[in-house]
């Protein structure tokens, strides 16, 4: 069963020039324990999608969807209080800059301690204190921090970036969420730290049956274990499906470009040669192209593209494009 089931999620914003869609009929399904990576450049709406799922959305924005279901429950039908309860119980989020989300004035021990749900520890006051201490250490151990006594006494600024991210993951998983949303958790990290964090998230997904929604700007930094991949551009869903299928034979020009532009595919180019890229810039909200929003930057665009392309499918992928690539020959 799908834990998360999103159909045609649309977020609109009223601007002086009129109503703009910052998320345009996005679909997403996620099963328990599944890892799904969302890839999109700045302004693609990927963080917004995450915010819509956890329910922190500017009240001035119009959020509509044919379905926004979590674990069989309709999130949009809930009142704010019920929704906060479900989100708080089942979901957790980590960010690109962990230090900014940790409290600078409290030790790591205090902060992890606070994240442990009160229902987890029972008994006398003393019993609870001892249990909490043990839980804190278990959590740190689970995210692969060895030197835990030293880390527990530290304040956030005393931690290296990698350790700080591990601590923020420990806090995020303290209440055993069923969904972890990671918004660019490794973007600015050095490669060896990034690998550690990626392995950790993958391990947690597999061992705790926790679904992971990984948000990133670059196909090179999706989790190696990711099963599904979604590409967003300017709030529109470009292509989604089995990660292996998309990476091998993308149907959408945007997917193809993102693969070409990832640093991994560039190591054979002569030094200082110009790199492949999409021309132009992401349009501003005021000047969203009509139809396929990639149009002005797409090397394959034709007249037809000013009409929004309908969803089309192949065996393991779904995409929106009038002129798809890698057509299967049959």
């Amino acid at each position, binding site marked *: 069963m799908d834990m998360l089931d999103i159909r045609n999620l649309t977020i609109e914003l009223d601007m002086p020039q009129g109503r703009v869609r910052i998320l345009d009929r996005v679909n997403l399904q996620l099963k328990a324990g599944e890892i799904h990576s969302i890839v999109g450049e700045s302004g693609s709406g990927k963080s917004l999608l995450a915010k819509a799922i956890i329910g922190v959305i500017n009240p001035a924005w119009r959020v509509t969807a044919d379905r926004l279901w979590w674990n069989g429950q309709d999130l949009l039908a809930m009142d704010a209080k019920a929704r906060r309860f479900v989100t708080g119980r089942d979901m957790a989020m980590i960010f690109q800059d962990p230090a900014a989300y940790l409290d600078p004035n409290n030790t790591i021990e205090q902060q992890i301690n606070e994240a442990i749900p009160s229902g987890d520890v029972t008994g006398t006051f003393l019993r609870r204190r001892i249990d909490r201490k043990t839980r804190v250490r278990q959590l740190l151990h689970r995210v692969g921090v060895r030197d835990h006594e030293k880390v527990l006494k530290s304040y956030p600024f005393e931690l290296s970036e990698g350790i700080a991210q591990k601590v923020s993951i420990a806090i995020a998983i303290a209440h055993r969420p069923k969904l972890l949303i990671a918004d660019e958790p490794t973007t600015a990290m050095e490669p060896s*730290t990034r690998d550690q964090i990626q392995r950790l998230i993958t391990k947690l997904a597999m061992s705790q049956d926790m679904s992971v929604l990984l948000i990133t700007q*670059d196909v090179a930094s999706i989790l190696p274990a990711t099963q599904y991949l979604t590409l967003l551009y300017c709030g529109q869903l470009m292509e989604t499906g089995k990660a292996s299928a998309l990476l091998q034979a993308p149907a959408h020009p945007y997917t193809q470009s993102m693969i070409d*532009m990832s640093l*991994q595919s560039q190591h054979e180019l002569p030094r200082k040669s110009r790199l492949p890229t999409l021309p132009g810039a992401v349009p501003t909200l005021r000047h969203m192209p009509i139809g396929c929003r990639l149009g002005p930057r797409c090397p394959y665009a034709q007249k037809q593209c000013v009409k929004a392309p309908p969803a089309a499918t192949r065996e393991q992928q779904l995409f929106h494009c009038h002129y798809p690539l890698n057509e299967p020959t049959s």
Partner: protein
Amino acid sequence: MTSILEVKNLSKSFRGRRDWPWSPKSVALEPTSFTLAAGETLAIMGETGSGKSTLAKLVAGVDNPTSGDIYLNGQKLYDANTKQRCQNIRMIFQDSEKSLNSQRTIGQQLEEPLIFNTRQTAQERQNTVKQTLRKVGLLAEHYEFYPHMLSTGQKQRVAIARAISLEPQIIVADEALVALDPSVRAQIINLMLDLQQDMGISYIFVTHSPQIVKHIADKILILYRGKMITFEKTEHLLNKPQQPYVEQLLHEHL
């Protein structure tokens, strides 16, 4: 090739948080020397805390060295002639978010270095800024925008625009590319390569991406705990066996 930049025995040490004369100094950078020619790119690599940003800041004059000298075009740079340094050596920081003032438009902020360092009229400044915005892949209309109206990637481009608007000889970029979108990153790398080809700009890149280093760097300088352990031409370094530390830095994680 004559070098435009010569760095001699540059070092930096910090005292602990309490600056007593007897508290031990920690050395962030041991005496380091290197040279850079016009149109060349130097990459500085090293693990976290190895002193990369310290070295970059000293060269850019954002921070003062404990000892050592820097020569630009054969002329010694003193802290006093900051204007010459400002014009000729520009720095781009990792965190463009913090280096932008939220109260002022992008245009106003990009005009600042022009006001302090050139004699352009208001109209000329506006034109320069708009041209520069287009050069970095933004639109002239972004002139009127405030930082909060831009996405992360767009703010990074503004930072780059600010660095190139004075047409400097050297640009020091501290992890300025990591947080960029792939298309912007490729465009910025291409743009920087173009500027280098056309204007002979030299770059000092602090980065931990081996792919970027291999693609753009002519020379690689490697730091280990504040000490320079390698300073070599990229192709020499890549074509010989390396010690494990260097190997790990240059290894492409796939």
